[in-house]
């Protein structure tokens, strides 16, 4: 089995697991959630088959939409489930992108593949660290305090400003 097929199959598996996690323990909004998950999985599979990186990125939107509906439907908060869904979707998306690059290209050294997996691991570990940190903060301030809101809004604003600055410098001389 070629490398890109293995990557695509693994990506599909991760997305399927994320879908199962999203659908599980949903009763009131189950129809909407399943429809969104099915749509997301279909777009994902179609984009992976077609080799569209942007399509794979867009497929995450209905999946996350389904997750939002599911989380909104369940009264208790499950941080673990949220990070598991997010992590599975991220890893699946990355693997699908890798499968496209492997299929388009021909020569891939082991070093390149190892480098990609290292990057994925860094992101997942970073996300877990942030989640842990957030849990700690929430434990200290169980109510949705002004401190948490300021922290979240401040971080998001900083990130967005930084992103817009970088996007404005697309064209470089040279």
């Amino acid at each position, binding site marked *: 089995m070629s490398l890109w097929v293995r990557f695509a199959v693994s990506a599909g598996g991760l997305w399927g697991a994320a879908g199962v996690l999203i659908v599980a323990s949903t009763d009131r909004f189950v129809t909407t959630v399943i429809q969104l998950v099915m749509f997301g999985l279909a777009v994902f599979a179609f984009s992976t088959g077609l080799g569209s*990186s*942007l399509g*794979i*990125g*867009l497929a*995450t*939107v209905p999946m*996350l939409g389904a*997750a*939002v509906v599911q*989380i*909104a439907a369940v009264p208790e*908060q*499950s*941080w673990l489930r*949220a*990070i598991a*869904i*997010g*992590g599975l*979707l*991220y890893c699946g*998306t990355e693997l699908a*992108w890798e499968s496209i*690059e492997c299929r388009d*290209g*021909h*020569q*891939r*050294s082991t070093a*390149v593949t190892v*480098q990609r997996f290292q*990057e994925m691991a*860094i*992101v*997942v570990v*970073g*996300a877990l660290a*942030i*989640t842990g940190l*957030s849990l700690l903060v*929430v434990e200290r301030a169980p109510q*949705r305090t002004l401190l*948490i*809101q300021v922290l*979240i*809004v401040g971080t*998001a604003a900083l*990130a*967005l400003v*930084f*992103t817009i600055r*970088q*996007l404005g*410098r*697309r*064209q*470089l*001389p*040279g």
Partner: protein
Amino acid sequence: MRNRSTERLMTAVVLSAAGIVFSLFAGRSAFAVMVAPWFVLMAIGLAGHRRQPARLAVTVDSDRVFTDDEIELNVTVTGPRGRVKLTPRPRGRFAWSARKSGGRDGGTDKSMLGVAEVAGGGRPTTLDVTLRADRWGTFDVGRFEIEVTEPFGLFRQSAILTDPTAVRVHPSPRQVAEMAPPRLVRRTTGSHPSRSADRGVEYADLRPYSAGDSLRDINWRISARSDRLWASQRHPDRSTDVILLLDSFVESGHDVHAVVGLAIEAAVALAESHLAVTDRVGFVELGGSVRWVAPGTGRLQLQRLVDALLGTGLFANAADRDLAIIAPQALPPRSFILALSPLLDGRFRDALLELAGRGHDLAVIECDPAVTPPADDGPEQDAENPSRRAAQLAWRLWQAERRLLRDQLVQRGVAVAPWDRDVSLDATITELVRRRRRLRSVRRA
């Protein structure tokens, strides 16, 4: 290099923003946690983003190769750390089939040739690509698109790399053991026996010894049987001017690249063999373009000739091409003109007849035009199919026309020897020599 964001950055920005907005409006931090991986990806990728453009350099290990030989192309990338991809973007005269280093044949022109990690920190990273020359000619190595993707894949730099280094692909080497002896020679020493009698190696005649003759010329055997001294006369070895006249007219109905390739292979072999015996060799291309190299000797002249031959342009041109536009020094008087042609274009045929009329010593190697004759299924089948009969008739007329042309050339004292790829060039030269001798004897008679 052009720097742009990738679909990864778009996805990360959209999802992070959506997650945080949902989280704030719904008051559920789980939404923000769910998009945490994309948020982290975006933060790490942007923090590591460097606006340092990547620098590229291309080197080729050899600028002269034979057909089917391989050259190594080294692309050195210096710049920010990341992953580099090299993809060929061929132009019209892309004559290479690319092969990745250590990999299987790439084959298609648009395939990606290689992926490697750029070390970053100013350390160069080299990407090796093996190219195989498919056909003769002078080419650059084409254009390549190079992409350097930064770590975490949020930004990508790309550039089209055009390497102007010319690589000359020589046709497969052919050795010629025999040379067609010229009818006219120069006064300088060479290795073609002259018809005049003078000092030389090959025995010519005897004559009575006269004052001023060298003692070395006295034929002692004959003189011993006579009451007087006899001196041997010999044919002196002389060099000549050989002009390789190449027909590069493009005529429809045959594989012009194959035919001219055949002619060029022959021309290179003939140039090498004649230059090896101190002949002066020149080159005239008459066809889509008209070019010439004045006769000269030595290794440098061989390089000049090969470069000129490899630069032969094959394109249709309806303009009048005649010998009047060729400089006189390219066709010196008393030169031996060896024409290589499929004898298809009327302008080249006219030029041959004009050269013969000018009194040049002319011989023609007729390269096989590789035209497939129409199928012949017998008269019954032909009678049923009028178009096939017409094709047969056209083929016979064309053959008759070619025979007529050969006869015209023979009547002017020009020997024509056919040559196709399956026959060795030596055999063709032998046949040419035989026909030239027969022509001379017929003319004498």
